[in-house]
């Protein structure tokens, strides 16, 4: 349970940060760069989860390009154990969730009028300050639910932990599969399933509360 929770939170937070960055670049950068980023994300989004996990297995393997590159540069003398651990599973899950979060955040950033940005720059604010004082305060309230959706989606992942965790990362979905198909302990499997549903429902309720709070803030602002 704690592993699943930790994986979900790490994946949600990192996916939100990277997804926000990519969505921002797609919307605000020039058309060519934006299209390249968008095509890369969409190509990744529509590729099978299993194919992507196997790609990561090759990349993170003992004789994979990442270990080879680090040895060639001189950072390490022996290959590191990059696969079959928590980090590998987190990388695989982030890779799945980043395009999803990015696609979810593009309309959020696009809805922000460019006039605010122009006004801030016109008044002498730097690009970074414009981002911190204009973009972020106006988009975070819509961006956080997308990150929470990523957390919800990650909680029930099975394929990626199996392929990249190598049985060492004990997420709740693997435990349910083991209990129901190996141990035939259906009571335990049912209890784990209920725990998973409760966990996902808690995040869904958090999204609803955030949405309700946002509506009340808007109503207060307009009145």
């Amino acid at each position, binding site marked *: 349970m704690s592993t699943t929770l930790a994986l979900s939170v790490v994946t949600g937070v990192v996916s939100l940060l*990277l997804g926000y*960055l*990519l969505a921002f*670049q797609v919307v605000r950068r020039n058309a060519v760069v934006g299209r*390249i*980023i968008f095509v*890369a*994300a969409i*190509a*990744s989004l529509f*590729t099978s989860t299993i*194919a*992507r996990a*196997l*790609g*990561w*297995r*090759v*990349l993170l*393997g003992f004789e994979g*390009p990442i270990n080879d590159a680090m040895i060639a540069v001189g950072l390490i003398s022996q290959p590191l154990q990059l696969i079959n651990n928590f980090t590998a599973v987190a990388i695989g899950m982030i*890779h799945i969730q*980043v*395009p999803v979060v990015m696609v979810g955040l593009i309309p959020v950033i696009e809805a922000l009028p460019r006039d605010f940005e122009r006004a801030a720059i016109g008044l002498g604010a*730097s*690009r*970074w*300050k414009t981002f911190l004082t204009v973009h972020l305060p106006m988009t975070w309230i819509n961006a956080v639910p997308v990150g929470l959706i990523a957390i919800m989606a990650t909680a029930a992942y099975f394929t990626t932990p199996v392929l990249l965790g190598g049985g060492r990362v004990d997420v709740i979905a693997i435990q349910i599969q083991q209990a129901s198909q190996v141990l035939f302990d259906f009571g335990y499997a049912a209890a784990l399933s209920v725990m998973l549903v409760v966990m996902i429902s808690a995040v869904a309720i958090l999204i609803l509360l955030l949405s309700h709070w946002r509506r009340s803030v808007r109503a207060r602002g307009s009145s």
Partner: protein
Amino acid sequence: MKNVISRLVDTVLCGAMHALTVLAVAFLVMPLLVVVIVSFNSTTVIFPPRDWSLVSYMQIPRWPSTRSSEASHSASAVQPCRRCSACRRRSPW
């Protein structure tokens, strides 16, 4: 002076953001490229349960003939030698 420092910080942070964007795109694309490369060149990786080459996927498995001497070699050998025709014909499965 304050203005110069502010501009410098802005440039550094924007540069870092662009660098992070490039890394993020590479992060998204790298596994897909690896899958494509591996699918065309099975010698780069040995991954169970199948030989990862398009050629092997397109071939219909042929079992070695029992009459030829090569067949006995092919059946007994642990590793395919890749020299005789029986080993070359051997199914990737």
